[in-house]
């Protein structure tokens, strides 16, 4: 088979990080090429280089597409060549129809006047091709995520795609939608469309990929031909690249009495008010314990945490919460903080930090009273506090006067952590604390978590990475569709046990 895409010696550096280091990738025409690697391995960065998000000149190396060297200056440039990327966060306009979305920026128009008959006819044909049974006039907001994904693919097809890039397309889909999507990819392959599939779900990759390239810490570790089936163990070995044992700091938990207990907690979805986002959840947390909340994306874990933390999510919240046996009022964020809670958000950029402000200003934000007298900020104390946390949890920055926006993901996460550590909570809820940060910083975050627990704090870690939960927690709760569907000591837990708890609850629901 001939090669459609050849990326040679791609190097891309950000301030302080080398995201890609001399990566080469070769994709054959008409294959499904999977790109795998841990978070932060450089998959998305590589695809951004390919699609022109990082224009030529901002990286080193060479892109050869269809036998010619290309220097894309933007997405429009790469799309003209038929390279189309579908991002994890879908880029559809919710209040426009399917047809309008598909032809957005590429309207079937003559002299600026849209030909709606033609638009709808072509949309119907595209929808038939991707197997979506919806009318072209349907508004995208009425479609589920799986169907929206298909609309994205139909949109790509409308642009005469030659190389389709899908970034984690199934991460928010249920199993049947995922399967349908994978089948569609195979069908498109049979019609000559090459795809690059980024995913961390190895079982899905095994189903469809012809070739797998593994990235690790910004380098391409191996390229595996899957014509004879994929060797999953080899892929994992290449992805991790080191024994699993030293990915987590060693720990010796000392667990005390129950500190925090939640009973029959229910929260309704703020928009879809007939749906319970959190459904009658009860759990307990002990002193010095690290509790893990496992579950699929959308299982209701973030919703649970945020509804507990000052009703920051949901409506019609019911249920009771107890701290050291005493019932507490968590109805506003200041009250939740007063009760000893802290919530470190999964979305540090939009919910955790005031990005344009300095480390010095961000760190004390949740506990300004502690550095102020009669409402007047003591700037020496503030500087001393920021400096202390910068040193203690090793925030890498030029000084405390550096703006949060200029820090790397891992260091931003540490600033958010510092903010909550300074608020001195008894109960710390960490939502996806290592999302999108590199392996080294992850280990440091795990160490901080361990040390906090050792110091008698109680922690809840929400994570979608099961190995992480298995590596750093003492006890696990499993959530699915807003309900607690399992609880087990981490020592006895396995990925299979957790998945089976989820699947069993799905079964119970269907009955």
């Amino acid at each position, binding site marked *: 088979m001939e090669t459609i895409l050849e990326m040679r010696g791609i190097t891309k550096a950000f301030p302080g990080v080398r995201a890609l280091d001399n990566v080469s990738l070769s994709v054959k025409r008409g294959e499904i090429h999977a790109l795998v690697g841990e978070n932060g391995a450089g998959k998305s960065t590589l695809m951004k280089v390919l699609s022109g998000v990082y224009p030529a000149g901002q990286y080193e190396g060479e892109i050869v597409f269809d036998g010619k060297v290309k220097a894309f200056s933007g997405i429009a440039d790469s799309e003209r060549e038929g390279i189309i990327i579908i991002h994890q966060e879908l880029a559809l306009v919710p209040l426009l129809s399917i047809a309008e979305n598909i032809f957005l920026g590429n309207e079937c128009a003559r002299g600026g006047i849209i030909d709606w008959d033609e638009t709808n006819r072509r949309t119907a044909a595209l929808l038939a091709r991707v197997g979506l049974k919806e009318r072209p006039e349907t508004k995208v907001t009425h479609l589920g995520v799986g169907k929206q994904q298909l609309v994205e693919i139909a949109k790509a097809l409308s642009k005469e795609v030659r190389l389709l890039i899908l970034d984690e397309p199934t991460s928010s889909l249920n199993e049947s939608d995922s399967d349908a999507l994978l089948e569609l990819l195979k069908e498109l392959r049979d019609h000559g469309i090459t795809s690059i599939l980024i995913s961390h779900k190895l079982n899905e990759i095994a189903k469809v990929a012809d070739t797998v390239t593994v990235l690790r810490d910004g380098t391409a570790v191996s390229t595996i031909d899957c014509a004879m089936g994929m060797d999953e163990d080899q892929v994992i070995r290449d992805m991790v690249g080191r024994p699993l044992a030293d990915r987590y700091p060693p720990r010796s938990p000392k667990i005390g009495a129950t500190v925090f207990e939640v009973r029959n907690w229910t929260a309704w979805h703020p928009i879809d008010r007939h749906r319970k986002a959190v459904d009658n959840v009860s759990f307990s947390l002990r002193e010095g314990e690290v509790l893990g909340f496992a579950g699929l994306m959308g299982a209701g874990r973030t919703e649970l945490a945020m509804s507990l933390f000052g009703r920051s999510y949901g409506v019609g919240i019911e249920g009771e919460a107890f701290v050291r046996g005493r019932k507490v009022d968590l109805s506003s964020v200041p009250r939740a903080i007063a009760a000893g809670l802290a919530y470190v958000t999964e979305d540090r950029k939009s919910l*955790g*930090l*005031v990005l344009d402000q300095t480390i010095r*200003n961000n760190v004390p*934000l*949740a506990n300004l009273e502690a550095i102020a007298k009669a409402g007047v900020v003591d700037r*020496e104390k503030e500087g001393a506090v920021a400096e202390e946390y910068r040193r203690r949890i090793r925030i890498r920055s030029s000084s405390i006067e550096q703006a949060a926006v200029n820090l790397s993901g891992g260091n931003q996460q540490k600033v958010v952590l510092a903010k909550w550590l300074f608020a001195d909570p008894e109960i710390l809820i960490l939502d996806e604390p290592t999302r999108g940060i590199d392996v080294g910083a992850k280990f440091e975050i795990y160490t901080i978590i361990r040390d906090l627990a050792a110091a008698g704090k109680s922690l809840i870690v929400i994570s979608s990475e099961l190995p992480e939960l298995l590596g750093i927690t003492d006890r696990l709760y499993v959530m699915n569709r807003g309900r607690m569907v399992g609880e087990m000591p981490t020592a006895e837990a396995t990925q299979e046990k957790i998945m089976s708890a989820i699947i069993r609850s799905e079964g119970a629901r269907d009955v």
Partner: protein
Amino acid sequence: MSDTTAGTTTGAARQSGMRFLRDNLREYGILIALIAIMAFFQFATGGILLKPVNLTNLILQNSYIVIMAVGMLLVIVAGHIDLSVGSVCGFIGALAAVMIVQWNVNFVLASILCLAFGAAIGAAQGYWIAYHRIPSFIVTLAGMLVFKGLALWLLAGQSVGPFPPTFQLIASGFVPDLFGVGKPNVLSLVVGVGLAVLMVALAVRNRRRQQANGTLEEPFGLFVAKYAIIFVALVYMSWLMASFRGLPNVFIVMALLIALYSFVTNRMTIGRRIYAIGGNEKAAKLSGIRTERLVFLAFVNMGMLAGLAGLIFAARLNTATPKAGLGFELDVIAAVFIGGASMAGGVGTVIGAVIGAFIMGVMNNGMSILGVGIDYQQVIKGLVLLAAVIFDVYNKNRG
């Protein structure tokens, strides 16, 4: 370059000085712009601009814009806007006139009631903005129409005045000549010099503290140059005004407000929180900050300051007219943006807003002296606003 021989330390110091200047271009840029504009008009008007009588007028003419700009800064930093301030200013002026002139209410009581009423107007608007999340643009656009109409109704379309002389003193009174020397007014001079000394002393103390903490960034040369300019300007201006009729009362009020709000925004937790809200409201809320209440208070404060500006404006004209306050909101908002505030919120300083107000004021005044038509004046002011914001955006994108 001859620099290379001058030892590495001075070279490095100069380099870090340049870097600091570049990083803080905005802050120095606006001060330099004001000085340049003043120098230009001083030259172009043949020295009229800084004549004692004109300088005094300049302060009096712009005091209400400056006072409202200070309030508007908080509103804009919090991520909102208030279009109603001109109308509120006019309405409160009308209310004061009706109370004092027609109902013979004591002017002190009337002034207090007017300030309270201004705060209540701010509260009424802030309530919808903060607690019901109605966009501030719309709420205050409605307020702008409502209070313009109410002012017209209150005055029954007529001008009401004149005020008793005691009330007029708010706007047109001067610091008394306590020492009985006559001109120059010594008390004015003392107050002016005292203010300048205090400011420099505070700056030196602050710098010492930064030095002790190792957080010093501003190079010594720049520090000296900045405060030397400020010190000389303050002393020179108070000498000029002292040699006319002394410092206007309004100047004292204004200086106190600027000092107070600078302190609130820089040093107090409430100021820190307002910046956090403007920078990232959701993160602020999740940090336990009562975002609604602070936004509400920013509008209450704005209403009160608009009320104060209304009193001063009415007292200055010695009459309340239905047209008072017309278009003030535009000057106030322009001043805040020229002063470096960001439309998105979270950025801006009180001093910047004040300097922005004076840039507008000096241009108004200078162009009027030069006899530039009102048509060109508007065009030029518009272009200056645009240029200031383009400079900001460019500066920010350049990183």
